[in-house]
């Protein structure tokens, strides 16, 4: 039984957060699974979509659908205006210096691969080094491994301590004259660790080393200001931040983007083509070959405005309260061990039970309506570091409630009963 204290107002100080009203914005939350009310705690995998985003997609396809940057007709002008308007809205959300620095990609993964293929192939050579960390998602490991293999460069990995915090002394030691790039997450998807990203960037810049930040788990929860961070590249995915799948953002400092070759060849990324020579388009179009995901761009801009409208400070405070409450509730479960207890943590509860494998627990939770991720979370090196094959991960969003965390904890108790 749940013995922890009840959720108190002081868990989220100064908050007036009408979570039930917020939940009404998300139609997918209002459903039953296996005959139980859905408790959606898999937000780090993908988030649900507010009606405003769904309406933006429907509105675009119902009224404005046309190709961009080429038509002389009115619908194409409207589509172009909406698409480029979305770029500016996203630029403002991230406080980028210019809309030319906002490149539409498919998701964070493609953003990283773009930087690998263009920046990496241009500026990384034999015996050069790329620094990543032990808590990266596979998307921020594998592209760099591929590059290192191709260029005979070396991958250097910043270790983490038993809480899941980066060991900053080791990081500082890894930076050197051969380091060509630091590629690092702002928030770990598997552990919830919030890395000291400004300090990481400051140290790298002391050596004139550019920094790519994987913000896939940061943008849904925190206000991100790329100029304040000072990062050289920043990537995130739309679908994890309440927007559509298949759209993401690569922010890059104009000075770097100008020096990098194009990513893919095709329409839209060119100014003039002859069989002898092609003149590439200017930024940001140089990096956007082919017809883009127009609806996705509009949906993403709408999603970012939606969370900005709720207030990212307020979102952060509510989630912080949920995390504290959920941590206490899970601490009452016998044999439960939290994996990832970083000093600064995002709303992720990753855990293992002594006698129940994560995959069995995931199935049992699912049948009580609780959707979690069970597995390695595309971060197998993290699992290896903590000596577990897999964890169960409950990842929260601002629409989650204290009552849902109580359902999670009692569902885990039920699993213990089944396995007794």
């Amino acid at each position, binding site marked *: 039984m749940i013995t922890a204290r009840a959720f108190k107002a002081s868990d989220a100080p100064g908050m007036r957060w009408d979570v039930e009203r917020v939940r009404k914005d998300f139609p997918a939350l209002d459903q039953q699974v*296996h005959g139980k009310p859905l408790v959606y705690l898999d937000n780090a995998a993908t988030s649900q979509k507010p009606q405003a985003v769904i309406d933006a997609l429907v509105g675009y396809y119902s009224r404005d659908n046309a190709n961009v940057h080429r038509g002389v007709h009115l619908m194409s002008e409207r589509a172009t205006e909406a698409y480029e308007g979305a770029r500016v809205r996203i630029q403002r959300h991230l406080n980028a210096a210019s809309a030319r620095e906002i490149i539409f990609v498919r998701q964070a993964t493609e953003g990283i691969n773009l930087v690998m293929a263009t920046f990496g192939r241009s500026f990384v050579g034999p015996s050069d080094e790329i620094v990543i960390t032990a808590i990266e998602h596979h998307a921020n490991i594998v592209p760099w491994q591929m590059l290192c293999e191709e260029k005979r460069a070396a991958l250097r990995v910043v270790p983490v301590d038993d809480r899941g915090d980066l060991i900053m002394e080791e990081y500082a030691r890894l930076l050197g004259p051969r380091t060509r790039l630091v590629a690092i997450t702002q928030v770990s998807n598997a552990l919830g660790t919030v890395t000291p990203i400004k300090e990481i960037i400051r140290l790298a810049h002391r050596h004139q080393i550019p920094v790519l930040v994987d913000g896939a788990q940061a943008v849904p929860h925190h206000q991100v200001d790329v100029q304040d961070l000072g990062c050289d590249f920043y990537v995130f995915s739309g679908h994890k931040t309440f927007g559509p799948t298949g759209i993401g953002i690569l922010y890059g400092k104009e000075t770097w983007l100008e020096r990098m070759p194009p990513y893919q060849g095709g329409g839209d990324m060119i100014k003039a083509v002859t069989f002898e020579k092609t003149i590439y388009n200017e930024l940001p179009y140089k990096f956007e070959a082919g017809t883009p995901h127009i609806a996705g761009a509009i949906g993403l801009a709408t999603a970012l405005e939606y969370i900005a409208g709720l207030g990212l400070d307020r979102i952060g405070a509510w989630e912080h309260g949920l995390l504290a409450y959920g941590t206490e509730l899970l601490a009452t479960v016998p044999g439960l061990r939290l994996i990832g207890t970083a000093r600064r943590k995002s709303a992720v509860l990753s855990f293992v039970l002594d*006698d*129940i*494998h*994560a*995959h*069995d627990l995931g*199935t*049992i939770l699912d*049948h009580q309506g609780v959707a979690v991720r*069970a*597995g*390695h979370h595309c971060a197998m090196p993290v*699992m290896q570091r903590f000596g577990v*094959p*897999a964890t169960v991960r409950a990842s929260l969003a601002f629409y989650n409630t204290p009552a849902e965390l109580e359902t999670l904890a009692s569902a885990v108790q*039920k699993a213990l009963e*089944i*396995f007794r």
Partner: protein
Amino acid sequence: MSELRELYQQVILDHNRKPRNFRTLEGANRRAEGYNPLCGDQITLYLNVEDGVVKDAAFQGKGCAISMASASMMTGSVSGKPEAEAVALFRRVHAMLTAEPTGEVAGDGLGKLAVFAGVREFPSRIKCATLAWHTLQAALSRAAEPVSTE
């Protein structure tokens, strides 16, 4: 909850807690690795096959309750069987696990192995139950590569 009880029957929980034949096999002449990347289930299967008969079977590995119980019971049921019968058993278990949930339960005559019939109600878990059997098939056909459920 009744569906969950159907999946996690006492027999399965017991084999998970105390897997039978959980050891390396001295003098094994067949060996295969099985891996389920979705949840990280991993087993190494050892067989001693003489004159076309599986004289002994053992395994080691780690994974979820379904995969461990399945490997434990599989090794128990193929020991002493001619290879052809072991392969036939693989086919029948596979048919039972992958049958349409609404169809006839094809567990008749499978004896204790019929406890896995409930797994087909849980599509994401079928691979956990079939892993040991796919590994058996690989070991019998002398496949050198690790088998994967993907």
